[in-house]
């Protein structure tokens, strides 16, 4: 089921020198499959993981995740 949270993780990974899903997963302490599910909008991460992702890309959390107003 698609969630109401949009994200720019794939774009940010590409901008960070084509960081792999596995590399991001290792840095935030989840599995690669979980990063994939978040990217595809199939899983909404906890606030803690969302902050960790934002910290990896050195960007504010709302630059990574946005609430989908249409949802």
């Amino acid at each position, binding site marked *: *089921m698609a969630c109401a949270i949009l994200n720019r993780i794939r774009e940010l990974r590409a901008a960070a020198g084509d960081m792999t*899903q596995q590399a991001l997963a290792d840095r935030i*302490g*989840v*599995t*690669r*499959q*979980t990063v*994939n*599910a978040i990217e*595809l909008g*199939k*899983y909404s*991460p*906890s606030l803690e*993981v969302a902050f960790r992702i934002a910290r990896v890309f050195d960007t504010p959390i709302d630059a990574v995740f946005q609430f989908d107003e249409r949802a």
Partner: protein
Amino acid sequence: MEPPPMSFREKSAWISFVTILLVFIPFFWNSYRQWQGAVTGHEGVSTAFGLLLAFVVLEIVLHVIVAIRAPKEAQSPRDEREQLIDLRATRVAFYVLLVGAFAAVGMVHLTRSAWAIQQIVLLAIVLAELVRFGGQILLFRRDA
């Protein structure tokens, strides 16, 4: 885009699901034959213990093989999504176990056979475990 390969936890769920099916279908078939009197009590018990031993060995060997291929993942704790999947699947399995428990209580009124009641309880546990691992597999696949 191609989905990522299965995680250790998903492989573990598949192993348990398939192993339960492989072992407990013949297990309950053996119990049924015992109930019908097609096999003696001694033969039935020997077969049942053999199958339970096979279940433990299969679970251990297959999990060790999968863990050797992904040691880092096997040693790391479940992440938040895996925990959520486990909780959701366990919640559904609980209701199956609950129905089985009531069936066992009902069985007391139909038969005084402790063996038959034991089989109903075992069946409830096995079905609940199948639902738990099957639920985990479905939820893992849905997110892939």
